[in-house]
């Protein structure tokens, strides 16, 4: 139907019809998630992704170090994608655009979030090798615990529901404050764990030095300086970063004001990881498929930002 004629022949509103409201905080976060999927789809349109090398060179190596069943499945899928590179990549692009549009379009937001979770888990397995969790190669700098897993977590936390309108933060609307807190502690606690006890082969200096290839000069120089800075301070850095992550992990148990300060720190840390550690998801190299975990960590911190409630002094109290 022509848009103009649709406007000229108004349909009587039904009892269930709601007026259009501007996006609230949760809707804005959903739109941010949709924007990231949109960006992923656009990045997936790069020529390299349509080449036969995409499967074997990008996805295949993530099998390394994983248990047999996981490694074999990744190898098989990456080989298969390599053989049908154009069709497979076109399908990936379409799926990601579809998720972005479905989340952004109000009547289909639930479908979009469900697709987001399903696709995230598939990509986490076959595209990111479970984020290196089982291979022991995970590092906060490489997007641990797998950037795409954070898409799934956010899709769940941002599910549109009328439950708990007085929740202490957006992330607690669906799952409730206790589960929301467990998720936050699990993510940041796990990052702290790999900062403290991560594999020595994943030393930040080594990782940062390895990022230089294919990056623009200014970013390569930033990587080089950062690598030099941390090269001789490995153990000290591990302790400092690990402790910082522990402080962030316990933010959800703090009173509102300190919680906000720590969540702001979490956003800065997310941005720092994105810029220095992840090189903006290596999007400048021509082979970046997503912006990696940095922006998602920021988005997650926004979702946990304590909402202003009259009379509530603590994040915990507001939930009661």
């Amino acid at each position: 139907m022509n848009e103009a004629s649709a406007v000229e022949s108004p349909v009587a509103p039904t009892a269930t019809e709601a007026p259009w409201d501007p996006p609230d905080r949760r809707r804005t976060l959903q739109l941010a998630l949709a924007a990231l999927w949109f960006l992923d789809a656009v990045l997936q349109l790069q020529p390299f992704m349509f080449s036969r090398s995409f499967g074997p060179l990008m996805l295949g190596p993530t099998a390394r170090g994983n248990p047999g069943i996981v490694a074999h499945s990744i190898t098989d899928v990456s080989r298969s994608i390599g053989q049908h590179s154009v069709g497979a990549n076109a399908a990936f692009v379409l799926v990601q655009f579809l998720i972005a549009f479905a989340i952004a379009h109000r009547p289909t937001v639930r479908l979009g979030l469900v697709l987001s979770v399903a696709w995230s888990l598939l990509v986490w397995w076959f595209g990111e090798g479970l984020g290196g969790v089982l291979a022991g190669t995970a590092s906060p700098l490489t997007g641990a615990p797998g950037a795409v897993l954070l898409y799934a977590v956010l899709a769940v936390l941002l599910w549109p529901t009328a439950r708990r309108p007085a929740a202490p933060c957006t992330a607690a609307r669906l799952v409730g404050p206790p589960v929301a807190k467990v998720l936050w502690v699990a993510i940041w606690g796990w990052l702290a764990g790999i900062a403290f006890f991560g594999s020595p082969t994943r030393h930040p200096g080594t990782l940062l030095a390895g990022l230089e290839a294919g990056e623009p000069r200014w970013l390569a120089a930033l990587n080089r300086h950062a690598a030099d800075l941390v090269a001789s301070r490995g153990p000290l850095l591990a302790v400092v970063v690990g402790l910082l992550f522990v402080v962030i992990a316990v933010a959800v148990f703090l009173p509102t004001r300190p919680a906000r300060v720590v969540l702001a720190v979490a956003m800065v840390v997310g941005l720092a990881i994105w810029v220095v550690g992840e090189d903006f998801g290596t999007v400048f190299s021509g082979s970046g498929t997503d912006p990696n975990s940095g922006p998602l960590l920021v988005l997650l911190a926004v979702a946990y930002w304590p909402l202003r409630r009259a009379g509530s002094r603590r994040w915990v109290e507001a939930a009661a």
Partner: protein
Amino acid sequence: MSDPSWLLDLFAAVMLAVSAYCAVRLVVVRRLHRTLHYGVNSAHVAMGLAMSGMLVPVLNAWPNPVWEALFAGFAVSFAFQSASFVARHGLTGLSRDHFHRVTHYLTHLVMSFAMLYMYLAAAPVPAHAAAMAMGPAPGTAAFVGLPLVFILVLCASAVWHVDALSRFTPAVVAAAVRAGAASRGGEVGAGPEARWLAPRLEMGCHIAMCAAMAFMLVLLL
């Protein structure tokens, strides 16, 4: 078939269609007694034509300096409109038609800059090449962070417009028209929602343009 030249053709075709549709809107809007943003629709016409020419050089209508001057003009115009909007309605205010905020003009300002960037940064190609092999020109590496900013703005603008599509469903528009009439003391007449010419199609054009422009900028990263 790993060469994505078909992809460039596809985006070029979509951009030509968007450009042609926006041109038709500009022609028929008065005849239909409707309203639209002349500046935005004119920019969409020019951007669609220019992008199709960049993607498939044989479609390039004018020499690059002409396009550069045109988009510099659009950038100045949108900068002026942004400034006057802020002066009139403040940073968080709504326009008189209750649809647009200052971001509407800022987004098109960014799009104009992005077009300029593409002309200045893209490596030159022969006029009659089969398809544009886009890539950054030597010397633009120092500004490689700039297209990423443009891309982020375009992605955000695209999803924001998808969200707003449901604002213009027939039922919501009818409700808004009735509410508007009631607030005018029962005076029957089309409110701004009903006067806007095919708002969802205009948004669709904007979304397609954001996707195409973001794609082209990604090729320049």
